[in-house]
């Protein structure tokens, strides 16, 4: 049963610390998305990649967030320095897009719950 995995599942850190969240997309999928879920905003798209190339990261605060795909089996989202307002659940999703964009289903990981004190 193929699924997206995310580590860590929970992270508590202090303000100013660096946080790295990792995602392993489903093997064979060519798109990866990072979302942030907050009570007020719901699911916000932070960044997405196709074939490991970043297509759009306009949803991310550029000064502190960065997203990369060092290889096809790993996507990372880094926050440096972290702030209390970054506390949220961060989801990674992957999909197989064959030229039709969002008409293809996204498969979400279980999320990383981040708490910044």
């Amino acid at each position, binding site marked *: 049963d193929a699924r997206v995995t995310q580590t860590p599942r929970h992270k508590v850190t202090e303000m100013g610390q660096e946080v790295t969240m990792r995602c392993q997309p489903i093997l064979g999928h060519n798109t990866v998305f990072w979302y942030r879920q907050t009570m007020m*905003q*719901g699911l916000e798209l932070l960044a997405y990649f196709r074939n490991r190339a970043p297509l759009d990261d306009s949803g991310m605060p550029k000064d502190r967030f960065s997203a990369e795909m060092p290889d096809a089996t790993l996507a990372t989202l880094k926050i440096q320095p972290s702030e209390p307002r970054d506390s949220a659940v961060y989801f990674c999703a992957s999909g197989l897009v064959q030229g039709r964009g*969002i008409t293809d289903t996204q498969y979400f990981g279980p999320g990383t719950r981040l708490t910044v004190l």
Partner: protein
Amino acid sequence: DQQVKQNSPSLSVQEGRISILNCDYTNSMFDYFLWYKKYPAEGPTFLISISSIKDKNEDGRFTVFLNKSAKHLSLHIVPSQPGDSAVYFCAAGLTGGFKTIFGAGTRLFVKA
């Protein structure tokens, strides 16, 4: 500016009755709409979708209705079951694009 709005944060329904979850969007360019379901401590899972060339799509107990003139879609669950209790996210985007805009979600409680 929220382009996809789910104005009801929660909904409570009796088992066996119909659940109706609503969603409004502001961008008239959106031509593809999706519903995702999310249980606690899990990621959202795809439920049902509809293209703007249709006004209805049905999958078992789940039906999505699209009213383009009103920029409104709804998800009907009939009959509702306790296992349907979850958060439901409405999402929208452009065919051929990759960006999906999600609403804030509606928490559905189905009482036995």
